[in-house]
């Protein structure tokens, strides 16, 4: 289980619209990037019909850029339906060392379960986002939208998130001595902001657990902070990514293990991050309500004995 999944830590900040500048400067066409568009009129009324507007794209094949490769899947930046709509393609290539039938079944199953979890969770979070957002307005929690799934090929097309991973934010905030004022928008600029971000992350995880979803591989690379749109006030929305190891469960143990995994990730990357993680737990307990204390107790147990997987059943 450990280390078998993808991380998104190398996602770059890319302005959503700057990926491919439109050759004719945009215009008001609905589909500026389609291969061609006819706008034709039946020749019933004068004036005579204008000649069809034909737009030819130099390259109708969408660009696929590999941005990350893990043991389980390859991540590409690409587009969906129209070249102006950025998307992430998660592709699970077939493994030559597995029997073809088993390989196909595993790929299909993992693809479907991940996508299903994302779709369901997105809806649940839409519902609870209003409650879970930070007190300063904005900055709720969500998961990427699923655009398309081709389980036979092992492909999931999903929303492209513009922003930074928590890991990148922590790196910048804790390791670099560069003045924080020059940091990108998603990066908190003061110590207080950083602690507040941790609280929000705690409540984001609580929101996920509240709908009985277990992430399975909660690391600092799997939590993203969406870059707020330029000029907009408030904090960037938190986006939980990579549900490849996700599951549905309401047990304290699974929730505690999620937190434990995240704690290990915090501690192993930054010595100072331990104090940060305390804030995460504060936000989590607050967000979980009554169940929070139970999970905390369980977390203490898990810390003591390490992560064990139940081998029952």
């Amino acid at each position, binding site marked *: 289980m450990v280390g078998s999944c993808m991380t998104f830590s190398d996602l770059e900040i890319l*302005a*959503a*619209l700057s990926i491919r500048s439109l050759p004719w400067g945009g215009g008001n066409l*609905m*589909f500026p990037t*389609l*291969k*061609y*568009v*006819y*706008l*034709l*009129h*039946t020749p019933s*009324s004068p004036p005579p019909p204008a000649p069809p507007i034909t737009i030819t794209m130099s390259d*109708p*094949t*969408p660009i696929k850029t590999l941005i990350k490769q893990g043991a389980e899947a390859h991540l590409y930046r*690409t*587009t*969906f*339906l*129209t*070249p102006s*709509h950025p998307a992430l393609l998660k592709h699970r290539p077939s493994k030559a060392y597995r029997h073809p039938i088993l390989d196909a079944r595993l790929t299909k199953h993992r693809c*479907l379960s991940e*996508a*299903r979890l*994302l*779709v*369901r969770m*997105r*809806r649940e979070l*839409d*519902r609870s*986002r*209003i409650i879970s*957002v*930070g007190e300063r*307005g*904005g*900055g*709720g929690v*969500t998961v990427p*939208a*699923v*655009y*398309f*799934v*081709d*389980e*036979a*090929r092992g492909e999931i097309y999903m929303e492209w998130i513009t922003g930074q991973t928590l890991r990148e934010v922590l790196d910048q905030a804790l390791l670099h001595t560069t003045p924080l004022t020059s940091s990108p928008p998603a990066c908190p600029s003061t110590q207080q902001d950083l602690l507040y971000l941790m609280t929000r992350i705690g409540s984001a995880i609580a929101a996920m657990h509240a709908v009985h979803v277990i992430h399975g591989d909660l690391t600092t690379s799997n939590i993203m902070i*969406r870059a*707020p*749109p330029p000029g*907009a*006030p408030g*904090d960037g*929305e938190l986006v939980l990514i990579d549900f490849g190891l996700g599951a549905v469960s309401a047990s304290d143990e699974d929730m505690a293990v999620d937190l434990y995994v995240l704690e290990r990730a915090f501690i192993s990357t930054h010595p100072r991050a331990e104090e940060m993680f305390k804030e995460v737990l504060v936000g989590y307990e607050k967000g979980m309500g009554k169940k929070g204390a139970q999970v905390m107790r369980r977390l203490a147990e898990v810390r003591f004995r390490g992560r064990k997987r139940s081998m029952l059943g």
Partner: protein
Amino acid sequence: MAALNLTTLNLPHLPPNSHNVHIAVLKEIRNAEHLRSQLLAGNDDYEYAFIDASNIISTKHILVAVFKALRGVVEGSDGGPGGLRTRNVHSEIVFSLSPNNNISESFTRFGIVDKTRNLIAIKVEVLTADRTTPTTSLSADAVRQFLATTVEFGESLPFTDEALYGVSDLETVQQRYKYLAINKEVGVVGKAGIKGRQGKKKSADVAQNTSGIGDAQKQKWGEGGEDIQKDLEVWVIGAMVMKIVG
């Protein structure tokens, strides 16, 4: 006869030049009954995806369905996901819109019915290996000709989010995709101003897809309508791709 807008397009992530998709949005149609009966009778000339526009919230909604159907047809031959589950690519488009696996139900819910007033007509032209059209009856001109003479319509709208939004019935969409419970909650919050949604409001995605229809959304949804519509669209696409609404 009114002028007819026909949009012809090519979708990415399919073999290049493998297909053309012709789409027309026709308002105030008067002979839905006739179109439907011909469809049921299996008249090949009427082999179109005729979709009741009240079920559709955006161009993306439609295009995902077309994409899903086309992946089956165009890629099916080279070992991709198994071809079609319905009779042809056009019925497959209608079926793709459904959030579950009930084929006949998908036709009555998303396809043309006798009382359909606003129609989205889609014709897919699947090109042969040498990238030429197999029959001339499928070309854009032929499609335009056919629709103009066969469908009695009041107005032909462009295939844009704005136009589709104008003819969609959000209540129906929510019912079809079982999103009602959420809307009720959001409605309550809506009165309080949906404070927490500020941060989300102008995310790149929203700005890109729903630009220019904010006012219409506010009328239909109240304050914060853009976000709610965006949320609904995400759910609708997820539900139809995963077929998870029982």
